[in-house]
C-alpha cells in the first residue's frame, strides 16, 4: 500500500479555511487543477455517500465518493471510484487543525492506495506535489501570503 502525506500552514483561522474546503463540490473554486464539478444525482455536497464528478484541466475525469465529513474536526474523507490514475482502494483525508499561536491553520492531506509497484513513485509524486501541495499553495495564496 502506497501512502502520501502532505501538510502545510495556511495563514488564516481554521473556520475560514474550512468554509472554503468543506464544499465537496467546490474543487474548481479553490484548486488549480479542477475545471468543473457536479454532484451526481443532484445530491447536496455534504450528504455522506454523494459522488462528485469533476473534470481536470488536462482533460481527465474523476469520480469520488464522500465517506466522511466533520464540521467538528474540520475533516473530509473520500474514496476514488474512477480516475485516469489507475489506483485502487484509494482513500484520502483532508483535515484542518487550528494553530492557536498566530491564528493560522495546519492543513494535512493524506492518501492510501494500491497500485502496481513500478508506478508507485510516480503516483506518490503526482498526487503529493501535483494535487495536494498544488491545492495547498493555492489556498495559501488565496489567504494572502
Amino acid at each position, binding site marked *: 500500500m502506497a501512502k502520501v*502525506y*502532505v*501538510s*502545510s*500552514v495556511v495563514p488564516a483561522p481554521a473556520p475560514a479555511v474550512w468554509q472554503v474546503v468543506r464544499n465537496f463540490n467546490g474543487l474548481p473554486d479553490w484548486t488549480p487543477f479542477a475545471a468543473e464539478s457536479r454532484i451526481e444525482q443532484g445530491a447536496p455536497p455534504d450528504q455522506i455517500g454523494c459522488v462528485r464528478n469533476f473534470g481536470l484541466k488536462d482533460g481527465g475525469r474523476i469520480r469520488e465518493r464522500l465517506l466522511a465529513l466533520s464540521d467538528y474536526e474540520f475533516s473530509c474523507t473520500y474514496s476514488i471510484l474512477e480516475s485516469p490514475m489507475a489506483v485502487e482502494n484509494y482513500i484520502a483525508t483532508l483535515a484542518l*487543525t*487550528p*494553530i*492557536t*499561536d*498566530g491564528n*493560522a491553520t*495546519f492543513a*494535512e492531506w493524506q492518501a492510501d492506495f494500491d497500485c502496481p509497484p513500478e508506478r508507485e513513485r510516480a503516483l506518490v509524486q503526482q498526487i*503529493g506535489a501535483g494535487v495536494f*501541495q498544488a491545492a*495547498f*499553495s493555492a489556498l495559501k495564496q488565496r489567504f494572502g501570503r
Partner: protein
Amino acid sequence: MVQVTQSTVIDAPIDEVWRILRDFNGHESWHPAVATSVIEGGARVDAVGSVRRFRLRDGGEFREQLLSLSDAKRTLTYCLLEAPVPLMGYVATIRLKPVTDGDRTFWEWRSEFSPPATRRDELMRLVSDDIYNAGFAAVRGILTRSRPGPGNLGPGAGQAILVPDASSAPTSVDASRALPSVAPPRSADATTKAIVVERHGGPEVLQWRDVHLPPPGPGEVRIRHTFVGVNFIDIYSRNGQFDLLRPPAVPGMEAAGLIEAVGRDVAGFAPGDRVAYACPPVGAYAERRNMAPELLVSLSADISDEMAAASLLKGVTASFLLHDVYPLKPRDIILVHAAAGGVGQLLVQWAKHLGATVLATVSSEEKARIVERRGADHVIIYSRESFAEAVMRFTDGRGADAVYDAVGADTFAGSLAALATRGSLVSFGQASGPVGDWDVGRLASKSITISRPNYAHYTDTPEKLGPHVSRFFAAVRQGIVTVDPPKHYPLARAAEAHRDLEQRRTTGSLVLTV
C-alpha cells in the same frame, strides 16, 4: 472537565523538535518555568511509567508520570501525580506533525483536567500561557538560534526567552493560593460552626468549620437553628450541577429555629420568635446565620421545629407541583416516581386527597409497603418490571394524565411512554443525572406537555410563597398528609446524610440536628 489546547509551528525539522521533547526529564533544560527536575528511582527518561519530580522557579513542587511515548507518532502523554495547585485529573498530550511544505513542525499541546469551578479560568490560563505557550517560545528560541538563516518565522520570534530569568519568567504558580479558604474570623466578630463546601465535589468536600458571623445588618435577622433540612437541591449545589453556591460557602436552603437578633429596619420579627424557611440564598448548614426575613415563615405552636425543617421545602414543592405546575383534577390518573422519598410521599397522599388515581414507582419491596400505606392505588417496583408497561396495563392502554418525575435520566424516556395523549410530564429533579437532549418534535406523537419548574420561580416572593405554606400546614393539621419523623444526623456529620441520600438508602426526610 475542561480542555486546553495550544498549538504552534516551529521552524525546524520535526526530528529536531522531537529530540528535545521526547526526553521526559529534559524540560529542566528548555522550559523557562522549570528550575530542577529528576527522574525518580533512576528510571530511564523514555521508560513509560517513569516519574519526573520537578521544582518550578517559584518553588512549587510537582510529580508527573509518563503514560505513553511513541517515536512513530511523535506523541507523548503524561499525567500529574502531585501538585500544589488543584489541576485535578490533569492528563496532557504533546503531539508533533511534520509540515512537509517547508520542513517545519506543527506542535500541539493539549490537556484535560477538572479544576474547582471558581479557579477554572485562572488555571486554564496558567496551563495555556505559562506552561504551553512559554514552552513553545522557549523551544522556538533554542532551535531558531541554532539554525540561523532566512527560515525564521519572523523578526525576534522567541528571542525574548532565550535567557529566562527568575523575575520575568512566566511562572506564576502561586502555591499560597493553592486552596480556597473561607474568610478567617475577624477578632471583633463572633463565629459560628458551619459546614463549608470547599469546592464542588462529592460528600467529602463538606468540612466542619468555624466561620465568621457579623451582627445582622440592616434588613437582616439572625437565626439560631434547631433543625436543618437536607434536600437533593443541597447535593446539586454541592456538586455544582445547579448554580446556587459558589465555593467556599455554606450550603443548605431549609431550617427552623429562633430569631436571636434583629438588625435595623426589620419589622414583624422579634428575638425569640419561632421561624422556618425554605428558600435561597444557601447558608442553612450552620448553627446560626443572618438572612433577610421576607421569606421567613412564622411557626405556630402545633408545628414543631423538627417537622418544619423536615418538610417545609418538600411540602411547598408538592403544593406548587400539584396546584400550579400541573393543576391536578379529580379523576386524573398520575404516576409519581421515587414515591417513598420526601416529596414523593407528600405527592401521593395529597394527590389521593384531591381525587386522583395514584400509581407510584419505588426501588424496593420495603419502600413499596410505605407507599401503599400512604394510599397509592398501585405500586410498581421499577427494577422488576417496566413501569411504562405497567402503567399502560393498569390504564387499559390509555396512559397517565401526568407524571411527576424527579429521577431524571433513568426515567425520562419511560415517563414519556407512560403518558396518555395530551399528558403532562413534570420533570422537577434529576437524581439519576440530567435528562440530556430530546427532540421536541417527537412530543407531537401524543401532544405531550413538559414542564421543568425551578423552585425559586414559584416561591421567591412572600406573595408566591405564602399560599403554598398555608396550604401545606393546613394539610398537615387536617391529616391530609402525614410526615414521618425524619432521620437525624448531627450537623457536623452532614456528609453522612448526603451519602445516604445519594445512595437511596433513605425513606422520608433527613434533618441535621444543631
